């Protein structure tokens, strides 16, 4: 085994030690390409877990700049980053966590004029890490049109949910009236917890170990996880 292979193997030692995870699984994850739209609390957690656990080809999309109020849930940011473009800060932070990773960044706001170029069949899955329903529906519609699997994640208040859509789309679950949702604040760890569960599910999905079109809701008031088949 070469030194590079040895380092790679040791990097992934803990996940490779899992009884339910093999070298073949790691190679499969390393071959996947994931597009993450939104690099806020959800996007940063998901990207970090993917990049450090074998999913090394990631493209991140965002247009926002770092604000001090982001820091309660956006784990890759520091106070020194305030005012910088989030997508640059996140790309840099991810690259430092895995120098073998291939992180691409797109500094743009996703909208109707660019969604066709950004969401393409080059990706194995698209992750919705946006903070608004308009964007979430935009991603869902484009993925559904192009038959690209789509991981929806939403968090607010003390709860959140996620679902890998393949045969269904957000429109099958919700009407556009959901945009009237009354929003709350958010406790940082709730974002982390929901995003971590979604990341775990995503990695298992990429290895064909989890089904699509099952909505999983996490509620930290009722201490409850609910699974709903769509």
């Amino acid at each position, binding site marked *: 085994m070469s030194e590079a292979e040895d380092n790679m193997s040791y990097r992934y030692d803990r996940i490779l030690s899992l009884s339910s995870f093999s070298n073949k699984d790691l190679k499969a994850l390393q071959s996947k390409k994931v597009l993450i739209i939104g690099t806020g609390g959800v996007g940063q957690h998901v990207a970090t877990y993917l990049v450090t656990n074998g999913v090394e080809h990631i493209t991140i999309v965002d247009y926002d700049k770092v604000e001090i109020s982001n820091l309660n849930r956006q784990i890759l940011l520091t106070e020194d980053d305030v005012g910088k473009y989030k997508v640059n800060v996140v790309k840099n932070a991810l690259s430092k966590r895995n120098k073998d990773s291939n992180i691409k960044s797109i500094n743009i706001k996703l909208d109707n004029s660019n969604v066709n170029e950004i969401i393409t069949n080059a990706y194995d899955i698209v992750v919705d890490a946006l903070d608004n329903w308009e964007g979430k529906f935009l991603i869902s519609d484009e993925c559904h049109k192009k038959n690209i699997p789509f991981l929806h994640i939403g968090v607010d208040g003390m709860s959140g949910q996620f679902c890998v859509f393949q045969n269904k789309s957000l429109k099958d679950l919700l009407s556009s009236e959901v945009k009237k949702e009354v929003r709350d604040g958010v406790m940082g760890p709730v974002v982390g917890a929901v995003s971590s569960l979604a990341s775990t599910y995503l990695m298992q999905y990429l290895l064909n170990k989890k089904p699509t079109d099952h909505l999983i809701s996490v509620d930290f008031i009722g201490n409850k996880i*609910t699974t709903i088949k769509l």
Partner: protein
Amino acid sequence: MRLKVNSVNSNEYKSGITIQDLLDYKHIEAVPWLVISVNGVFVKRELFKSHILNDGDEVEMIYVRGGG
């Protein structure tokens, strides 16, 4: 009849009620971000007024969130 609603078992419910009847009884507004399943399977909101619940059904109500 007996229903399990949000993990709580009770036999307080009238037979033949619909999902909408259950929401009215519980004083729960069917806001657009409310999602309901019966026995683990999603029910479209267009069916709330016609989907009749059966004895022993398990009903879960969740609120989806749009933050990220």
